[in-house]
């Protein structure tokens, strides 16, 4: 991608983008290997869901973290990807996923053009519109196609191998997650990333420096939507089922929770946040089985969906207050303590103000 800002002096954190990506990558691969070796299908399923969520969270973080625009369109873009798969599942496997990404990117540009030329919360309004429009269209589609309960999607096959087992899925999703991680890492670490940093820090300054901020925001939204759309398409294949009910506003909020909990403008943070947030339903379920002996499990079981949502929301509130730069900033703080224990006493190890933070480039 063409870097809009080649001449701005490089800030410290952008010097070694590759080294920064190693720690989260190693962590994810280690978890994946451990679960693959343990051979548990249930853990494998949860892990795959978490990795799919991580792809979506990486996409959302581009817009909300790096470009500094609030979007509550994550669920809508996931739905666009998933319904692209429903419509063209006759095509061989990777093509519907790519088409899903393309469709989401086009819709992203469509809502970005009216809203991103303005400053302020207009992308929020536009994505709220999108959320309701997509909900309406997918619902009508379900009714018209006679699939009120939803659409079944047969498992994909690539090079003659059919991807059915959790292990096969795990490998597929892991490869895609790594590719997306590297892509996002590259996008946000070069001159493009510096331009985004200036954009979210001071939009007027960005214009002064010759950045076409509208175009930059649009490009970022399109890229982000494409990634989220692909994640939605892949998830449709993975679950094997698509229904308009599963893309509500609370799904969109859960992706915002991933970005906030992990850390805005942080690649490693997006992945950590996605794992953390998407494992909450599983954790609550486990908790209810443990507690059912004590009698409290019933309450959790009968309120499962509401409790999940309550926990997402509570997490967002807690992180905004106590850890505004997310898990990524905790990792950074720990690393600083570990690397330079003597100097750490003089350093300010508290997280930087969120607006100025250069994010997880060093996480």
């Amino acid at each position, binding site marked *: 991608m063409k870097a809009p800002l080649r001449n701005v002096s490089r800030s410290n954190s952008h010097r070694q983008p590759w080294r920064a990506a190693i720690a989260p990558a190693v962590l994810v691969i280690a978890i994946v290997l451990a679960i693959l070796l343990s051979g548990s299908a249930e853990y494998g399923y949860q892990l795959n869901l978490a990795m799919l969520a991580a792809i979506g969270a990486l996409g959302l973080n581009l817009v909300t973290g790096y470009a500094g625009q609030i979007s509550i369109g994550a669920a809508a873009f996931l739905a666009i990807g998933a319904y692209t798969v429903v419509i063209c599942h006759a095509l061989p496997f990777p093509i519907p996923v790519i088409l899903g990404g393309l469709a989401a990117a086009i819709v992203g540009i469509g809502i970005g053009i009216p809203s991103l030329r303005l400053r302020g919360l207009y992308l929020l309004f536009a994505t709220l519109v999108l959320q309701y429009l997509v909900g309406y269209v997918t619902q009508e589609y379900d009714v018209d196609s006679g699939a009120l309960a939803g659409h079944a999607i047969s498992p994909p096959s690539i090079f003659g191998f059919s991807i059915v087992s959790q292990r096969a899925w795990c490998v597929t999703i892991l490869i895609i997650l790594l590719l997306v991680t590297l892509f996002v890492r590259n996008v946000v670490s070069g001159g493009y990333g510096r331009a985004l940093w200036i954009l979210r820090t001071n939009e007027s300054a960005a214009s002064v420096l010759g950045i076409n901020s509208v175009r930059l925001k649009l490009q970022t939204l399109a890229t982000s939507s494409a990634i989220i759309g692909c994640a939605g398409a892949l998830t449709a294949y993975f679950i094997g089922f698509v229904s308009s009910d599963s893309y509500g506003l609370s799904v969109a*909020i859960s992706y915002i929770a991933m970005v906030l909990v992990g850390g805005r403008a942080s690649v490693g943070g997006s992945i950590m946040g996605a794992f953390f947030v998407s494992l909450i339903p599983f954790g609550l379920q486990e908790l209810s089985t443990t507690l059912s002996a004590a009698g409290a499990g019933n309450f959790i079981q009968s309120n499962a969906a*509401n409790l999940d949502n309550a926990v997402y929301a509570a997490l967002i509130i807690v992180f905004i207050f106590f850890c505004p730069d997310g898990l990524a900033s905790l990792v950074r703080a720990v690393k600083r303590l570990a690397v330079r224990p003597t100097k750490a006493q003089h350093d300010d190890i508290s997280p930087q103000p969120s607006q100025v933070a250069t994010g997880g480039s060093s996480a």
Partner: protein
Amino acid sequence: MSVGQLPVAAVYALVGVGFVFIYRTTKTLNLAQGAIAAVGAYVTYTMQSDLHVGYILAAVVGIVAAFCLSAGIYLLLMRPLLGQGPIVVVILTLAMVILLEAVIPMIWGPGPNYLMTTSWYKTTVRFSSVAITHLDLIMIVLVIILISFFAVIMRFTSLGVAMRAAAENPVLATARGVGVNMVGSLAWGFAGTLAAIAAIEYGSTQGLTASTADVLGFGAFPAIILGGIDSVAGALVGAFILAIAQGLAVLYVGGSLSEIIGYLLLLAVLLVRPRGLFGSREVVRL
């Protein structure tokens, strides 16, 4: 037809004027408005069904509860964050929506829970071809009284001046002796009050369900953007246009489209006139 949609417009107007108050005094967008209102209506429901209190008294208790909840959210959660910019604040209000919407069915069940009204409230009055209940009629009159009351407060009293000062420049306002916290929590409380009245009316006619908060908050939202986020008159006009548009959609296209007609309107406003019909020119075009 337009008379029949008046009660709907009244509900949107009450919620919408609350949005405007909060925006005018604290420059924030409170997406949790509908959820706060729903809590007020559910408190009214509990007062009625468990404590067997009369309709008016139960409604007053619910309204006071919404006032306290709204002002409390401002003081405890919003105030410390106002320096952090609009993104964080709006995400926090979104989190409040999800939290309250998750907690409500845990306490009160999925519903629908109807607020009980005596037969007098349900008696209808005929205007040419349209029948309106006493309750709706009271609501419409109440909307006019309340909103003009608050508009007068905003424009002519020292409290109104303090509110506008607090929004314009909180630091300078503090230096001149304006209690910014006090003024802000009053504005949030008023907004909660107005929205709770709307929710109680809604609960008396349609019944309270898990999605009431969505219907009130996000349903009224297009009206505010349509009218202009910082204009009381805009909120009224926006609410009326939205209600009429929904009525027309039900009449000519089909019921399911009426749920999103507001959002289609919102999209059109974003394209043509992003500051809304009556909004002040604060939006910066790049």
